[in-house]
């Protein structure tokens, strides 16, 4: 465990290449416990890759990443330990289609954390209440709407009681009318003090929820600022241009 003064996530001079393509360039970022970070930037700027490095879905090639006091290296056990402490929500939900909603939620607690099935089910039902779809527990993911699936995915990520939640464009694959229900759940989590890093283009959500805005472009972190300053007085030209485009003055 980390002491309160230490960051729960620390990226220092992280570099990564996909073949010859330099996707992350000297990325340095600290996230404190309870901090809510929203990452934005044009597509291909390395936002998703950065947060996928935090739970080692992608391997970084230079620099250091320390999560909750564990440095990510080749040690498989350490990686699995970090993944248990870090929940992740994907753009395309990635629920397990052959398992029911409830089974999706209890799988990791029972198999990974060794929780008794009864307790895991109780936790899962409580989380389904929280994302407001307890009545869907016995259904298969394919029978739910996109918004419902993403809420189940959030509940699944919460089942291991993670210290950090990563959101990788959680609303980008949703029909517009379903975006709200997912953002509501995320706002609720933020209000409870969950440490979270969200990659998203939902600027309204970002302004309301974020403690820190991070803008990335071409593999670099270009600007880090509190939302008020970020949206109203961006310091960097590229940030201004990007905000101009997506907010559409």
């Amino acid at each position: 465990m980390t002491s309160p003064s230490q960051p729960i996530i620390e990226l220092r001079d992280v570099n990564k290449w996909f073949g010859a393509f330099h996707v992350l360039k000297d990325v340095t970022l600290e996230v404190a416990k309870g901090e809510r970070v929203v990452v934005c930037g044009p597509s291909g700027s390395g936002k998703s890759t950065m947060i996928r490095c935090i739970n080692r879905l992608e391997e970084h090639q230079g620099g250091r990443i320390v999560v909750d006091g564990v440095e990510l290296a080749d040690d498989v056990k350490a990686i699995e330990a970090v993944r248990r402490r870090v929940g992740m929500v994907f753009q395309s939900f990635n629920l397990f289609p052959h398992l029911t909603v409830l089974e999706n939620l209890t799988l990791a607690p029972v198999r990974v954390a060794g929780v008794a099935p009864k307790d895991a089910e109780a936790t899962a039902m409580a989380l389904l209440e929280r994302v407001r779809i307890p009545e869907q527990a016995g259904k298969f993911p394919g029978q739910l709407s996109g918004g419902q699936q993403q809420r189940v995915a959030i509940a699944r990520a919460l089942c291991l009681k993670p210290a950090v939640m990563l959101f990788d464009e959680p609303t980008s694959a949703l029909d517009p009318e379903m975006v709200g229900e997912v953002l509501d759940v995320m706002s609720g989590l933020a209000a409870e003090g969950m440490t979270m890093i969200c990659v998203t283009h939902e600027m309204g959500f970002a302004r309301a929820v974020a403690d820190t805005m991070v803008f990335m472009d071409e593999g670099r972190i270009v600007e880090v600022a509190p939302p008020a300053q970020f949206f109203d007085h961006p310091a960097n030209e590229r940030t201004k241009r990007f905000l101009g485009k997506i907010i559409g003055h």
Partner: protein
Amino acid sequence: MNPSSWIKANLFNSPVNSLLTVLALALLGQVVPPLVDWAVVRASWGPGDPETCRRAGGACWTLLTEKHRLMLFGVYPYDQHWRPLLAMALFVALLAVSANRRFWRPWLGGAWLLTVVVIGILMWGGVLGLVPVETSQWGGLPLTLVIAVLAIAMAFPFSILLALGRRSELPAIKALSVGYIELVRGVPLVSVLFMASVMFPLFLPEGITIDKVLRALVGMTLFTAAYLAEAVRGGLQAIPKGQFEAADALGLSYWQGMRLIVLPQALRLVIPPIVNQFITCFKDTSLVTIVGLYDLLAATKAALNDPGWRPFFVEGYLAAAAVYFCFCFFMSRYSQWLERELAKGTR
């Protein structure tokens, strides 16, 4: 819908279809009556000898009455036939239990092991007062079942390891799997069986022999596994990357992710080619005759060696074909049912 309108809608709904219907009926009229005449009306039933059949002039089902024990059990000692019969019944019971999804529990593996041991004791004997019977005397349907069922049961898990190995990021494991699959797929089954049965013993030290049935069984297993592995790999490739990532992100280990997330989905997708391979394996057991084993087909052939019965080979082969068909048809229907069963609720 009443019969006449059904006929109109399905058989005479266009000039071409009307013509095809008439032609088909004419063909059936040519074929069916002589067939019924041969197979039923003039057929010879019940006990008798070749002379009975010749006098009757039709199908000689008498052959089956007289020779079915030789066809079914080969040269297994006649007074001990109850043992392979019981072994077959155990096999069928085991398969029936395994086919039921409710019994897909860890104990099923133990049940398989136990049944195979019991079948082995029954067939070999030598303990519990059973007369010992050499494997060279095993034959007929029990031999076919022993080789087919055990080859499939062993090849299946092996093929999953091969398929996972072929997709592995570890170069040595990947190279081994690719090399194995390509090598085995590159040669005919007959040569694999020859290798297992003729060449392999040459490499063993003096005095050590491995049972002939076991060698054929290993040959069949290794061969079938290579083909099955490619079918399984097809399923693995159809699973979206997101499923692997979600399993990783939840902290599941590689084997947990494979066992709980990826394989259940991948195997369901490739039930048709997998069952295809099972059926092929079952029928290919008839090739073990080239290494001197008397499977169902070879035993049938042996029964027809009797000079008097030789003219009635058609009846003998028809009977053997019917047995093969029963097993293969069951596998085919079962796989269709299983596909529907596993698809329930999803999508």
